């Protein structure tokens, strides 16, 4: 019976119902997209860095796990000192640079020889290794997404590069240029952002980390084997704050829209609430009616939000084909829970007001 009444009620005011549902849908979409985008970027980066095949990564003091965000470069001579450490097989210095032309990409400035030693070399789909100063390598996903072919000219960092080769994805970045070129472009002569290290045997990783830490106290020295597990937003304080504020913002939207919508609803239906009370409906019955109606609106909004999230993801991927947006079951649940709980909180005050209305005053309401 309540179900029937609620359905009738929400259909009775189709515009308001629609607006409320859309607001809840936006709330859900915002959460799923922000979380999906950041966790997608993180896991993508993590996977690619793991994919380099190095055992150890050395960064300057207090560098972020999400290394692309921390430019602070180190003198390149450190690489020679690292190479002399026992059981270190190869050291590859890499200079990182963000490119924001046509979406966000990380560019690795590499020395093809040492990078090859550490990573086992690129698998070439087409073209050849970096040779000239204006050569650039792109990975197969980038090539596919941007329709880039060997021999094309690629405009990055304000320069025209010549696409020398297309390589298998998963080696840290999607774009590679010679380190010397990147050093020139970014004014970071003789600097590196990170050193990737390969040990003689993987089992020696722990020991080598100990030696490096002794040599370079305060530097960030991390094993790469479980790098993925480090790449979570909680390890990135700034990012976590950003995600949390977006989630709160989304929840606030849902809360306020439901509050307003249910508030106007109960004012508009004052006389009906009086009728319910004259029929002997208890306060809890009235509260249940309001909360059930809220739930129905939220559920509709959640379904819409799920659909919109996948829609937004498709749109994003159409524009930025190299992006990853992770929509996980856990976050679908969390976003739905957030919408429902936010909705209930928003409906609490109107429901309380409604349940306390004096029946005679309510019946006399015009």
């Amino acid at each position, binding site marked *: 019976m309540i179900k*029937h*009444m609620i359905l009738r009620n929400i259909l*009775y005011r189709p515009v308001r119902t629609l607006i409320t549902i859309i607001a809840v849908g936006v709330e859900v979409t915002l959460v799923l997209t922000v979380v999906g985008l950041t966790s997608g970027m993180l896991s993508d980066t993590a996977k690619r860095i793991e994919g380099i095949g190095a055992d150890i990564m050395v960064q300057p003091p207090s560098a972020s796990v999400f290394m692309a965000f921390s430019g602070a470069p180190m003198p390149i001579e450190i690489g020679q000192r690292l190479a002399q450490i026992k059981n270190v097989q190869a050291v590859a210095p890499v200079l990182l640079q963000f490119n924001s032309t046509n979406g966000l990409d990380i560019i690795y400035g590499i020395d093809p020889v040492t990078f090859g030693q550490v990573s086992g070399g690129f698998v070439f789909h087409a073209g050849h290794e970096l040779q000239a100063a204006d050569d650039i390598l792109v990975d197969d996903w980038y090539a596919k997404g941007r329709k880039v072919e060997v021999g094309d000219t690629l405009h990055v960092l304000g320069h025209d590069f010549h696409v020398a080769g297309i390589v298998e994805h998963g080696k840290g970045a999607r774009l590679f240029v010679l380190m010397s070129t990147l050093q020139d472009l970014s004014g970071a002569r003789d600097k590196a952002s990170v050193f990737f290290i390969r040990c003689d045997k993987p089992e020696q990783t722990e020991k080598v980390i100990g030696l490096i830490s002794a040599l370079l106290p305060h530097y960030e020295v991390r094993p790469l084997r479980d790098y993925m597990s480090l790449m979570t937003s909680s390890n990135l304080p700034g990012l976590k704050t950003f995600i949390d504020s977006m989630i709160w913002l989304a929840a606030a939207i849902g809360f306020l829209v439901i509050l307003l919508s249910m508030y106007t609803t109960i004012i508009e239906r004052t006389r009906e609430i009086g*009728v*319910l009370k*004259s029929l*002997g409906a208890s306060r809890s019955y009235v509260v249940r009616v309001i909360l059930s109606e809220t739930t129905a609106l939220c559920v509709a909004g959640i379904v819409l939000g799920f659909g919109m999230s996948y829609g937004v993801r498709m749109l994003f991927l159409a524009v930025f084909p190299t992006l990853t947006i992770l929509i996980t079951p856990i976050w679908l649940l969390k976003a739905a829970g957030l919408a429902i709980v936010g909705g209930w909180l928003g409906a609490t005050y109107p429901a309380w007001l409604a349940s306390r209305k004096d*029946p005679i005053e309510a*019946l006399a309401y015009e």
Partner: protein
Amino acid sequence: MGVPSVGSKLEPILKTENLWKVFRAGSLDVAALRGINLDIFAGEFVSVMGPSGCGKSTLLHVIGGLARASRGRVLLDGNDLTSLGDAGRTLLRRHKVGFVFQRFNLLPTLDARGNIALAQHIHGDGFDPHRFDVVTQMLGLRERLEHRPSELSGGEQQRVAIARAIINEPKIVLADEPTGNLDTKNSENVLGLLRQLNKDLGQTIVMITHNPEAAAYGTRVLHMRDGLVVDGAAAN
């Protein structure tokens, strides 16, 4: 149901003792009821008349448990309303009282069937299709059940409201000017139905009206003035 027994006539179904209702309007106290003593017996159809503002609606609200008495006692089917809190009066309304209003007060979003079923749902004893059929048949609503209030005439709306009021077999039906918004033909129809409910089902009814012809449908007419019942002569 059925004709009330002689035994049940001895104990009034509704009794008020020195009933007062005082409204506080700003710093001013307005006494709407000033010590009403009233006995209404099972099976009676009582009409209440009196000038505007004499306290008729207030009386109905207090004896129906919608409002609290300021002083005195109201006994409804043996329960002392004045000792009950909000929750207690809610329960009493749910199980013992059926209200009919001048403005029908149907829920606009529900069809006739939904409006009647809502009362059953609030009552909570599940859906009794037999009672539903009897009541809707008697009130001539069988063909109109799937219509919303906006698709029904005033007379039909009031018949739905009456069906809603009696669907849970209340001890007493309290009607506040039920024909106040109806034309003569529909008024006669509704009044006839109330009389039929009273006669055939033994339904106890208290009805407020301004119209002496309407009042004559009752088995007794009460006259009120300035918050008091001024006579209680049985009509015949």
